């Protein structure tokens, strides 16, 4: 199975700007996820995406966040108007199977200034 690759690896953005985090390539899996990890803290679930629809989302995933699968191989997380507290490491993941767990991407470090 190919690795899950995220781009960019690091993004610095001004508060209030929009950012799009990308997860590529995606194989023919149905289940995708976004998680985030604020520096020094635990990994938190943001949203799960199944069969091109959001299947579950956390309280963190408010109206400022959206996810898309714009084509067959990309999976994106958009933050419309970034806040300082959005600074974190963002991970996408796919579920390989219930038996084998998840494959996480290498992460995008988002810094909001």
């Amino acid at each position: 199975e190919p690795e899950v690759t995220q781009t960019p690896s690091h993004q610095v953005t001004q508060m209030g700007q929009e950012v799009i985090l990308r997860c590529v390539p995606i194989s023919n899996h149905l289940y995708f996820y976004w998680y985030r990890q604020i520096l020094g803290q635990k990994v938190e679930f943001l949203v799960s995406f199944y069969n091109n629809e959001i299947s579950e989302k956390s309280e963190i995933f408010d109206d400022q966040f959206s996810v898309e699968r714009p084509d067959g191989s990309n999976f994106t997380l958009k933050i419309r108007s970034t806040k300082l507290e959005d600074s974190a490491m963002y991970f996408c993941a796919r579920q390989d199977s219930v038996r084998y767990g998840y494959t996480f991407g290498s992460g995008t470090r988002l810094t909001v200034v």
Partner: protein
Amino acid sequence: SQQGEEDPQALSIQEGENATMNCSYKTSINNLQWYRQNSGRGLVHLILIRSNEREKHSGRLRVTLDTSKKSSSLLITASRAADTASYFCATAYLNTDKLIFGTGTRLQVFP
């Protein structure tokens, strides 16, 4: 809260020693998974144990699950300096497809 807790928060050992990390959770699960994270890097899946399993091995890793106590342990035998990382348990609860991560254990293995 469904979130798991791990102990110890930090563990320092010498190469060759065994390292044991523990994880507790709150409600019924489908499975429990252990992940490793090197500093500032991504999460690497180590092992998955299902709710009907009690023990699982993978190389130098041994995971146990006690559903009556809602706890799991990860044992790394004959540790190496390269095992230095943070280790997280993550639970997949019933009727949900998300993982809930524990607080993690920072393991330092000295050569």
